[in-house]
């Protein structure tokens, strides 16, 4: 279902015009850099309203079915919207776990009832989703999940604790991976997947403060929390498969996401713009040959990432390692951003040591905060070290 260039171009103009009118201006308080950092009610209300507005204008879920609140168009349209959001430096579209993982998952594997019940409210931001996979003692090792869900009549009784539940204190629903059977031969076969309500007795989300000083994460405690048995997605004991499918969405291997505009995007051009105003030894920093050489390195990395995305569309140019480019995106992209943000934060002379809140800080401390915040990307969703293993094993066929 590819669209004519002309139609896409026209749509782009339409979106751009709408955004020029409707993108909210600076609200006067700090907005989160990513959906992982929504830490105050003020931020939440603002972002909820903004997402709702975008959806009402017909610019969210562009390729999701109309019967569930989408626009029934090609995914190219969503891509255009996301790009324009970036170009207009719009606030982020924050209901990311719903938009990027839960929505595509339900559209792919959900029942009609599940789709009808949940998808529209994801788009409209009426219902917020969070994810309950990781646990305090297991981090990246999902197979070891300990949170118990025991069936009693038409309910499951849940006990245990999840960690890093982004938006958990605000969320209406959680995609929950819990152990329904402790006696299976393979530990994976004891896991089940739930579309679990958050606003029930026995569920408490405790905010966790981050390295940036901000909030957004929670530790979620389940204490004899009773959830309807109908929350089970798929079969009991079939949770591992659903969770792995979810991770594919999280890792961007599979398409279908409603908006990938979940964080403030930073481009190499922004970096150069920022540094072009800085002086070193009384001269423009950008006249220093070493800095220039470093910037060439960053520009090449940025270009290589763009070219790689382009190349993925030409299968004949990736025959040796068919899934390689896609599987290495997170490994490359998140580390590149870490280095680039750190570099920009560190080349500001004495201003490098200022932080958000100081009037003299370069761009309000944006780069320092962005560097700190970026660890969410190199740690969450499988650390860089785990990503390297994934590429080594799944692309190069190296042993575990």
């Amino acid at each position, binding site marked *: 279902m590819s669209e004519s260039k002309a139609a896409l171009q026209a749509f782009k103009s339409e979106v751009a015009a709408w955004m020029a009118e409707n993108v909210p201006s600076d609200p006067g308080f700090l907005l989160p850099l990513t959906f992982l950092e929504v830490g105050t009610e003020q931020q939440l209300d603002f972002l909820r309203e903004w997402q709702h507005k975008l959806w009402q204008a017909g610019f969210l879920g562009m390729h999701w079915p109309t019967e569930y609140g989408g626009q029934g168009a090609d995914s190219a349209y969503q891509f255009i919207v996301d790009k324009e959001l970036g170009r207009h430096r719009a606030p982020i579209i924050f209901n990311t776990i719903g938009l990027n993982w839960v929505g595509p998952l339900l559209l792919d594997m959900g029942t009609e009832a599940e789709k009808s019940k949940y998808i529209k409210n994801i788009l409209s931001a009426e219902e917020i989703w969070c994810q309950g996979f990781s646990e305090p003692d297991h981090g990246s090792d999902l197979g070891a999940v300990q949170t118990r869900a025991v069936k009693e009549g038409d309910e499951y009784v849940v006990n245990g604790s999840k960690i890093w539940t982004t938006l958990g204190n605000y969320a209406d629903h959680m995609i929950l991976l819990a152990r329904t059977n402790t006696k299976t031969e393979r530990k994976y076969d004891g896991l089940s997947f739930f579309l679990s309500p958050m606003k029930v007795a026995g569920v408490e989300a405790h905010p966790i403060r981050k390295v940036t000083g901000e909030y957004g994460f929670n530790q979620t405690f389940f204490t004899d929390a009773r959830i309807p048995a109908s929350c089970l997605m798929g079969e009991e004991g079939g949770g591992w498969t659903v969770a792995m499918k979810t991770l594919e969405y999280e890792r961007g291997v599979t398409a279908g996401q409603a908006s990938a505009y979940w964080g403030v995007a930073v481009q190499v051009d922004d970096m150069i713009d920022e540094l072009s105003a800085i002086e070193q030894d009384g001269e423009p920093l950008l006249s220093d040959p070493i800095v220039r050489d470093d910037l060439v390195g960053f520009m090449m990395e940025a270009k290589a990432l763009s070219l790689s995305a382009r190349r993925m569309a030409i299968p004949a140019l990736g025959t040796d390692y068919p899934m390689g480019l896609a599987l290495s995106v997170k490994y490359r992209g998140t580390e590149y951003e870490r280095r680039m943000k750190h570099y920009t934060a560190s080349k500001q002379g*004495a201003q490098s040591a*200022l932080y958000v809140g100081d009037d003299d800080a370069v761009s309000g401390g944006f780069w320092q905060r962005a560097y700190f915040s970026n660890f*969410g990307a190199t740690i969450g969703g499988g650390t860089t070290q785990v990503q390297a293993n994934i590429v080594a094993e799944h692309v190069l066929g190296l042993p575990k």
Partner: protein
Amino acid sequence: MSVTPNVTMTFSEEQGMLLDVARGFVRDQAPMDVIRAQLETETGFDPALWQSMVDMGWAGIALPDSVGGAGMGVGSAVPVFESLGGGLLGTPLLSTTLAGQLIWRAAGEAAASWLTRLCSGEVGALALLDHADWGAANCGVSLGSDGCLNGRKCFVADAGVADVFVVVANDNGETILAIVEASSLSSDALSHNVVIDLTKRSANVDFTGVAPVEILRGDRVASALRDTLLLGALLTASETTGAAALCLSGITDYLKTRKQFGKLIGSYQALKHPTVDIYVGMENARSFIYHGASVVDDDPLSEDAETACRMAKVAADEVMVFAGDRSVQFHGGFGFTWDCDSTLFIRRAQWAQQMFGGAIHHRKRLAALLLDS
């Protein structure tokens, strides 16, 4: 051109005792919960703790006994700052020590009254920068014909608690040092910085209309200023090296106890080998600071001393940035939280790497020193 020959490293019994005492003090008096309790306070340190340090003679550790100092030579400050860094203990000792050095090197015993005050616990601060560029000439503050200063200094460390400021200023083209009493500042002279390192404090200070109590000028000012900046680099490097060692030990502790996928994470080479590189970098920085401590003295710093100070700063900055960054990463999800000390380490790294010029600043000057002779 040759760089390797001078590997002087002296270490007296006296210095060994000082190192032991300093480490013990920090371990006992400033465990991490004490440090954390000060992170979001106004001054960032406990006055009682500061007084203990003064009582031990650390405020004058780098000054001769003729002016109330410990008489152990400026190199003796290295193990003290390494120890303070090893506890992330933020106090105004660095500012006070450097204010003392600048005055001593510019005026000697003629300025004994100021030095004695500093040795006895009054806090000194250096007002150096007109803006963020450590490499630029910073003499925007001028002395007017009315005997008052005119202009603002930026990022003045410990300005909020300083009793005495040494202000680098400009008197019709001549660089002078203006000594200003905090009491003579107007009530709105200070605007506090939001410093990324929560154990540190600084402020922009407006000296307009303030009359200095004394002006130091003459031949020795330029060399005193240059040497104080180099000593600032060395002592910051010492503090940073201590912090890097603490950071390393936090990482190794975690790697020895945390399991993932059924194995201690320290057994994964992706974590294990970079930790070795932090170790090597930390030891290198330590070698450079001890070497620096052995080649600086009260005379104008030699080329070897300059080389040592700059190399120490580069080595310490580089390992601290790497260690802090990896500390967050290797602690995984926990590393991303406020409760993990990793946040203190990347913040320290970010602060330290600019103080008295960053790696790029010193490497450029080292190239000229070592390749153009």
